[in-house]
């Protein structure tokens, strides 16, 4: 009798401390998500307030819409190129700056400053550096006798300029993660390979990188997930332009909803984005929930 009362008291206690967070999460994330899912099958205009079920109409509509396809492609290009560049550069830096040298911790701390800055501060500074007429980058180019570049106004270049900004800001993150991984490999591993007469290249490709494989994978996933959301940087730097050259899916969803009030189309685009994110992260989810990792 007493023990059942005790277990019930226990259950009650834990449920009651879980409940506030649970309610907030359900209210702010699950409920909106269900709404978006349902709206994606409706023709719903916010201004007229009219809604009607149209089945897969929005999806068909979106998937043949050039603007959406461009935005999706841009997001993929942005996401994978930044991730690749950041992880590659971060790994190279971690290898070069491996081990102890004078001023290492100061050096590393200075190096991670960019990732501490707010996105908007970063966008503001690069907006001035990229300025066509009086920006510093073009001044340097023209003083070297080269042609000025339309960093943010050339449709072929604008997306890559944003890639550059993201690489500047987030390579330090990749660097720290790789450095942490690298410095936790015991020295003996390397010493043994040196005794066995392995060259630097052999050590790098046969020992170091294989040991760091999971670390690199996790890092890639973290950056992919983060860059796939890209919104604020594009919004501040180009606003999606010139034309649709830097339009991303987040920007597309935002515009459809808050400028054109096509909530059905916006929701369908949201669902497509969402499934892409979930698809990309299945592996990540498994990794995070695998007790061996903890």
């Amino acid at each position, binding site marked *: 009798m007493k023990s059942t009362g005790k277990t019930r008291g226990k259950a009650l206690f*834990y*449920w009651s*401390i*879980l409940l*506030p*967070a*649970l309610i*907030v*999460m359900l209210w*702010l*994330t699950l409920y*909106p*998500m269900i*709404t978006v899912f349902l*709206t994606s099958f409706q023709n719903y205009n916010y201004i007229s307030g009219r809604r009607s079920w149209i089945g897969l109409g929005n999806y068909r509509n979106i998937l043949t819409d050039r603007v959406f396809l461009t935005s999706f492609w841009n997001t993929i290009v942005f996401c994978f190129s930044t991730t690749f560049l950041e992880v590659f550069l971060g790994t190279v830096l971690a290898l*070069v700056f*491996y*081990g102890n040298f004078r001023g290492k911790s100061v*050096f590393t701390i*200075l*190096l991670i*400053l*960019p990732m*501490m*800055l*707010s*996105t*908007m501060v970063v*966008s*503001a*500074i690069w*907006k001035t*550096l990229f300025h066509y007429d*009086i*920006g510093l980058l073009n*001044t340097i180019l023209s003083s070297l006798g080269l042609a000025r570049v339309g960093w943010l106004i050339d449709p072929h270049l604008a997306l890559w300029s944003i890639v550059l900004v993201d690489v500047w800001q987030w390579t330090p993150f990749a660097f*720290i993660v790789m450095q*942490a991984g690298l410095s*936790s490999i*015991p020295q003996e591993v390397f*010493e043994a390979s040196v*005794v066995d007469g392995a060259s*630097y290249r052999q050590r790098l490709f046969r020992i*170091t990188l294989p*040991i760091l494989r999971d670390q690199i994978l996790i890092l890639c996933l973290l950056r992919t*997930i983060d860059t*796939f*959301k890209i*919104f*604020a940087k594009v919004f501040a730097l180009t606003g999606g332009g010139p034309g649709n050259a830097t339009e991303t899916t987040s920007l597309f*969803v935002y515009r459809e909803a808050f400028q054109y009030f096509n909530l059905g189309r916006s*929701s369908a685009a949201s669902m497509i*984005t*969402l499934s892409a*994110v979930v698809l990309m*992260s299945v592996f990540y*989810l498994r990794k*995070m*929930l695998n007790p061996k990792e*903890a």
Partner: protein
Amino acid sequence: MATYVTTKHSPLFPIFMILILVITLFPIYWIVVTSLKTPLENILPVPTLYPHKFTLENYHKVLFGGSLHNLWNSVFVTAASTLLSLALGFLSAYALVRYRFPLKFNVVFLVWIIIVKMLPPVVLAVPLYEMFAKMKLINNLWGLVLIFQVYTLPYCIWMLYGFLKSLPLEFEEAAEIDGASRLQIVRLIVFPLVQTGVIATAIFSIIVAWDEFLFSMLFIRSPELQTLPLAIVSYIGEFETLWGQLMAISVLAIIPIIVFVRFVYREMTSAYSLGLK
């Protein structure tokens, strides 16, 4: 003893190091320098590398022109949303660590949290906007505090879950035998033990909240309620060449966060170690 990399003895090593530092730090230097130049000097066809005429005019204009409000709004929203997330996150993470809820609810909840963390927030914007509009929470700083939970709460639950999970059970069991109530155990035993974890979580949550832009833009209408990122964007858009003031606001937005840099460095280094040592 064999060292792994020998590049350090090469004369190129310091040169490379300086090059990397210049690439990394120059834009930050440029923010500060630009904020100290006169408006005229900032639109010269050939930018000057340092202020030829040093001025605090930009800061003066910005601070008395309303940015103090923006700073205060940012501080308030960041602090309040972090405190709320910590409270909710701490309690729920503790429940998830110490109690097995029926139907594998623990795992379901954690997976849900990760999915929310990965989600582009714009996906949730429309229904949340309608909801908040009905509750008169649009254009209201408390509304922002609530909406920020979309970012900060999953973050806090996930981090605190990790810290609480590494806690040994013995202290709590001993306290239970001594007749402490469950609430006393949480307050007097568990909380002090994970204090450093809570601080770490708080700092990362502060950084996330300080950076938030999308919901602030959608949910705030009046200029006097704008947070710093919004003020920066309106400067980028409207006054294209008032770079001095734009950079002065940026400096305001940098200072409260940059103080955590050493801490972030240490936290990340330990979080991403392979655990082979």
